[in-house]
């Protein structure tokens, strides 16, 4: 589904990704772990098409298309979803309104009929139950005055409504207490399926207690130094990241 080859990216003159390779197939859950400043969020941003990142080399292929050639909204319509590390507040814009506009944009692209208000609300209410969000979310402004945990839940709600093929979650666990973490993980797990791939970008192992990844990758200094299964995450938790770097230098 997603094939990243030799990806180099920089912000201004600062090189951040330095030859990153990653293969993600449908149905898989990948966790990208790494110390601060290793390039995790840059990877997520480049995949979603955020401005300010320059790709200097490498390719990203998504479902046979050149992802880097697509505008952010085209990527979204084609099924790429980024759950933001810092979800953005848009005062006065109704949460429901944004969600409906987004869903209908995506559905239109897929050739599906737009949902009317009743169908849409019924669907959203169901997903909200899963995320344990109360009705008031529907009438509030987008992330306006939301707590950190509410914002993250709102991201996963959007993901549940938009049903992407490739979901990239950028540090979705940061700032969550243990109950909120469980709710968010629940939401993510409910979306796991044979047609969907999920990339979790995270700093800590604890999210992986709730969402079991198929693969764990260690990102350091702009490259993936080591890949493994879930046990690698546990080992990182125990030993930190230094040994991976040393191992890589020796090799």
């Amino acid at each position, binding site marked *: 589904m997603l094939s990243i080859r030799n990806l180099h990216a920089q912000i201004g003159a600062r090189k951040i990704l330095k030859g990153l390779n990653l293969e993600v197939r449908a149905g898989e859950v990948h966790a990208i772990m790494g110390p601060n400043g290793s390039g995790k969020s840059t990877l997520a941003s480049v995949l979603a098409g955020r*401005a300010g990142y320059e790709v200097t080399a490498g390719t990203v292929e998504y479902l046979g298309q050149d992802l880097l050639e697509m505008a*952010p909204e085209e990527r*979204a319509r084609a099924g790429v979803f980024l759950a933001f590390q810092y979800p953005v*507040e*848009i*005062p*006065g814009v109704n949460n429901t309104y*944004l969600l409906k*506009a987004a869903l209908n944009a995506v559905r239109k692209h897929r050739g599906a009929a737009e949902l009317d208000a009743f169908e849409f609300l019924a669907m959203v209410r169901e997903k909200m139950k899963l995320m344990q969000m109360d009705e008031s979310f529907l009438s509030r402004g987008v992330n306006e005055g939301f707590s950190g945990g509410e914002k993250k839940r709102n991201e996963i709600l959007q993901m549940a409504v*938009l049903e992407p093929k490739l979901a990239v979650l950028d540090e979705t666990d940061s700032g969550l207490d243990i109950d909120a973490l469980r709710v968010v993980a629940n939401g993510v797990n409910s979306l796991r399926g044979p047609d969907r791939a999920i990339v979790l970008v995270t700093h800590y192992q604890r999210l992986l207690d709730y969402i079991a990844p198929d693969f764990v990758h260690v990102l350091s200094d702009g490259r993936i130094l080591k890949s493994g299964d879930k046990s690698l995450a546990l080992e990182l938790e125990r030993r930190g990241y230094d040994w991976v770097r040393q191992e890589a230098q020796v090799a």
Partner: protein
Amino acid sequence: MTTQATDLDALVAQKYRHGFVTDIESDTVPPGLDEDVIQLISRKKREPQFLLDWRLKAYRHWLTMREPDWAHVRIQPIDYQAISYYSAPKRKDGPKSLDEVDPKLLATYEKLGVPLHERARLAGVAVDAVFDSVSVATTFKDKLARAGVVFCPFSEAVLNHPELLEQYLGTVVPYTDNFFATLNSAVFTDGSFVYVPKGVRCPMELSTYFRINAANTGQFERTLIIADEGSHVSYLEGCTAPMRDENQLHAAVVELVALADANIKYSTVQNWYPGDEEGRGGIYNFVTKRGECRGANSRISWTQVETGSAITWKYPSCVLIGENSVGEFYSVALANHYQQADTGTKMIHIGRNTRSTIVSKGISAGHGQNTYRGLVKILPSAEGARNYTQCDSLLMGDRCGAHTFPYMEIRNPGAVVEHEATTSKIADDQLFYCRSRGISEEDAVNMIVNGFCKAVFKELPMEFAVEAQNLLAVSLEGAVG
């Protein structure tokens, strides 16, 4: 990789869509202003003597005045002798119905999306269309007449209701009021007149579409709305203008009178030609709008969406005389390209327990300069007066400006006055957030701007609110920062 298109210059360059000129022979007076021209206007309108006298008093007073220079706008000097003060679409005998109206005129309205008869029939709205300076079509008169409501061109009111004019004209905005209002008093040619009798709730929204057409013709509209005791009326005003090279002056006067328990709602969507990308050739919109709540428990509410004109200088105001009377001002003002808007309101509290609300939303894009200027004045007699003011500014890009000048004059210690102000920017991250959900950049901008304006749009009559949103979308197409 693809980066976001945040190239302001390309995006802000959106052409005005209503730029065209209808080819109709105008009965135009040569440029210039003196007492003869005023006599001529008055004669053409077959006005009674009192009106001519009033015009001449205004003119003589105007000669002693100077253009105001306190507004936060840059302005080319206006040559008042270069303006033609009278222009009427030529017609042999006045049209008695829509069928007799010059088809080209009707076609112009069609182009503007104002299919007169259709709109009137479908929406149940009576339209008093002002084309240049003379009203050419008035509909739904019968229905209004049955309710006792007078809604007609000003020039018709001069002939049919001179006693009302003599009683009310110039009592809210006196001919000495300010430079542009005084000029208007001397040379106004037409406008709308509304009288709603005691206890009558006007059966429909009253709507007027203004349009400036003949070259070099200043527009001097005069509107007078009188709501007698216990009556209700909602009045809608909307306008577009064709593309022109010369700056066109528009100096209208609107007077509202609300007697006891009366309610006037005045809504404006203004879309005059704003000038090109360099700011050339737009309309100068210098308008005096004021309402007096004369009776107890009366209410006057101004709602405006200002997207057009090169320069806007406009302060719809309320004088709250009657006890418990209420004044409201809801405004969205957009300044794109090189547009300059200096707008706001004055709320003058005189009576006891008078209340006023001001909600102003300014949007600046391109090189646009948006200024809110407001006065809240509470006189010693206004025991228990309250005011709430909220001024928000939204900036798109980094070459535009937003300015707020709130003046407060509180002479009663018991008054409660609140003022809130915010300035924000449409941030790249807001746009990216929307786009990363599949929403196009333009839709995202509209969404963010509409969210910003929500508190004002909800005050507009339903069908007008939709128009206003569309207008804002057209005016901002591509203006992303």
